């Protein structure tokens, strides 16, 4: 049963990713991307990461993609749609992507899951997922958390500065 569910989600994710890359109109690309993010959130649910699934839907699908959609609709794309989609020599680029898959395959051959950490499914279930994640995040990873907040502040200031009109 779980395998069938995984098969559906994986097939949908791959198909939607190809559609994102291949569709001519950027609005369609963004909408396919939205659907793909929802399926990725389903994969996270399959992996017992319900907090991350919610974050994926809220932040990626709710915030980032709406921002993308805003920008796509703000810009005038009538001429962009008519020109050729792919650059020349896309065979070489496809070979590059296939090469990455090949390297991954060779790398995964020798891979074994090593030691197991303290957070088994039962432990996470006892503490609830959000609480377990918060415990690790706010003790072990408190410095990266603060750095991430600083990064977001810099991003806000940078985005406002870049997109304002030049004052002369």
């Amino acid at each position, binding site marked *: 049963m*779980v395998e069938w569910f995984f098969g559906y989600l*994986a097939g949908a*994710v*791959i198909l939607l*990713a190809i559609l*994102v*890359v291949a569709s001519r109109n*950027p609005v369609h*690309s*963004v909408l396919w991307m939205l659907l793909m*993010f929802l399926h*990725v959130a389903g*994969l996270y649910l399959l*992996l017992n*990461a319900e*907090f*991350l699934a919610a*974050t*994926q839907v809220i*932040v*990626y699908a709710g915030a*980032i993609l709406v*921002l*993308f959609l805003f*920008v*796509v609709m703000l*810009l005038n*794309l009538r001429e*962009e749609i008519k*020109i050729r*989609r792919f*650059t020349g020599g896309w065979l070489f*680029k496809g070979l*590059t*992507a*296939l090469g*990455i*898959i090949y390297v*991954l395959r060779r790398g*995964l051959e020798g891979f074994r899951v*090593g*030691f197991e*950490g*303290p*957070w088994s499914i039962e432990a996470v279930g006892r503490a609830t997922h959000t609480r*377990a*994640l918060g415990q*690790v*995040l706010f003790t072990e*990873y408190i410095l*990266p958390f603060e750095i*991430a907040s600083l*990064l*977001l502040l*810099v*991003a806000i200031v*940078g*985005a*406002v500065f*870049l997109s304002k009109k030049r004052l002369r």
Partner: protein
Amino acid sequence: MVPLYWYLWLGGVVFAIGVFGFLARRNIIIMFLSIELMLNGVNISLVALSHYMQDLRGQILVFFIIAVAAAEAAIGLAIIIAMFRNRDTLHADEMAEMKG
């Protein structure tokens, strides 16, 4: 039980599609979407490894990746708007001003 390899394969394939899109498309918005695709491929692998190794660190990393992706999207789209205002195009080949 789904084996771990399937998830790692899925992450790798999504990453490779993202690489192909970034290299082959010339529309800047689609190139940006390809970067998000690559990040998602990595995220799938990280969550799967975190689940199968029974350690929450992978999910913490995914959390930070989502935060960084949000910052990157904000800055990148601001740059796209600034470029479009100056050049009136979204084609990456048209923006070769700094090339000698």
